[in-house]
């Protein structure tokens, strides 16, 4: 049994996926509790693509009604950690 990934690893995975969608974005100074869209130039299609990418990367089901929970970095980390436990 492998050890679960650390929060740091999950965090860099999430940021990498964000970087795939918006390569121009500087994610180093992201405020973790402020929505991505308030800090980065993302439109609604970008956000949709981001959630789909999370689903593929982490093999978790994300119902549409839960999308708002993934709008911040901390939101993503909380959801992903809950999905794994």
């Amino acid at each position, binding site marked *: 049994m492998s050890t679960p990934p650390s929060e740091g690893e999950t965090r860099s995975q999430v940021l990498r996926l964000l970087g795939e969608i918006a390569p*121009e974005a500087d994610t180093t100074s992201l405020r973790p509790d402020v929505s991505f869209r308030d800090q980065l*130039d993302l439109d609604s299609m970008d956000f949709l693509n981001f959630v789909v990418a999370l689903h593929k990367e982490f093999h978790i089901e994300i119902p549409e*009604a839960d999308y708002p929970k993934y709008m911040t970095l901390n939101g993503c980390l909380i959801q992903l950690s809950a999905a794994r436990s």
Partner: protein
Amino acid sequence: MPWNPIIKSRRDWETIPNLHDYESVRKEFSWEQARAELDGLPEGQGLNIAHEAVVRHATGPLAQQAAIRWLGKSGQVEDYSYARLDDLTNRFANTLQGLGVVKGDRVFVLAGRIPELYIAALGTLKHRALFCPLFSAFGPEPIRARLTIGQAKVLVTTESLYQRKVAGIRETLPHLEHVLLIGEERRQTAVPGTQNLYQLLEQHPRPYRIGPTDPEDAALLHFTSGTTGTPKGALHVHGAVAAHHITGKLALDFHPADIFWCTADPGWVTGTSYGIIAPLTNGLTSIVDEADFEAERWYGILQDHRVSVWYTAPTAIRMMMKVGVDLVRKYDLRPLRFLASVGEPLNPEAVVWGEKAFGRPFHDNWWQTETGGIMIANYAAMDVRPGSMGRPLPGIEAGIVKKTESGGVEVLNEPDVQGELALRPGWPSMFRGYWNEPERYKKCFADGWYLTGDVAKKDADGYFWFVGRADDVIKTSGHLIGPFEVESVLIEHTAVAEAAVIGKPDPVAMEIVKAFVSLKDGHEPSEALRRELLGFARARLGAAVAPKEIAFLPTLPKTRSGKIMRRLLKARELGLPEGDTSTLEA
């Protein structure tokens, strides 16, 4: 035709629709009558949009009623009564006066949906300068292009947008004399080369008297995109307000005391004609939500603010459909009487889903930047044919035409025949020109018709059906994107030899922007380069305009004369036979 019409009956009407009898209202309608519903400036001084939208209510029984109810991202609720809006727009008009702005100068606003945007828009109209909105998700390049073409004299924007998108291009904008900034949470700003908007508003508390305004005086400049060339500024006049006002009543069924919510951003024409002007001329309370789409937030707004008429867009409706009906059923939406949609054709599934989720269908309607207001619509009292854009408004004559070899057009009267959708000029909100481009304007007309660039059909009962675009313009999330604007940025990258941009069909956004590029010698396709190009385009164009997908090709297909064949690329993308690009018109 697999979708049954949605039959309306008198039993469905708690409020009798304004357009209760399409045929008779259409027959009796005249634009003079529509105009007579407005006050006009005192002492016969003409017709001014801001007077009809604000001043006349601020001095009447609606003075203390909320004109705009602003909902901030962080949960703030701010009501702007007609009287308060009158005062604030007076201050803005006086500010322009103080800056030496004169009638006809262009005042651009680059901002999200914040109250200052609405104050600047209406204050600019009072001062008889031209209001020119810019979508806040534009990157520096689309902003620079529009400010340059429109020779902007004043730009109103936020400190953050200025720093991110304008400061770097400022020196390329010699016409831009004044930049008025809104600080974060309305705080003071101290950015070189700019002034603080609130400081100026405080310095100008005086009343403002609107000067004589001819109905043909320029009022609004809305940028839109064509297949080729730079963005074009569609010019509208103050007299357009007669159309904004009456189409609100007839197509959106505005009644006194309605709470109306238009979800469109004023960066696009819908957000100005129906997000600012029409609800106010009709004396309604207009909801403005600063935040972006989120199903739960939206249902909460509909419920908490007792929205009765709602005007939204297909992309948002399709996102709500993905969330499902369980969520919406938790909300009490009884006041909601009429649902409308615009931006791109609404698929029949979405029209019908409205009934499932809200107990009422969505009413699709059709118009464009150049028409200034709704032209063809499904009405509250008329049966809805799901997937159809509806029937022309009273005062609007629409036809399906085919271009002839002699440069004229032939009207196709047979039902269900595909051709270009055309309108008979003469309605008040028709554009009066493309800014400084008379030739481009002229090309839009033939044999007494305005040619819309949309391909459509008309059925035997007079309902119109959208088929596609006659050109290569991309329709995405309700916005028009010109491929040329995107291609021009991509070829600025050192590795790119050529670029072609198409609309790739998408189940949510209708189309997404997809770019094909070929590389210069010495550059090889790679994942790293693809990402670099994506970031390069996004940083310059902004998320709303930049491609979502980029693919490499060794060369791009061209005609003998060397023109890149976007349609062939689109055929390949759709898996259509390459020789058969005619179906792409469909």
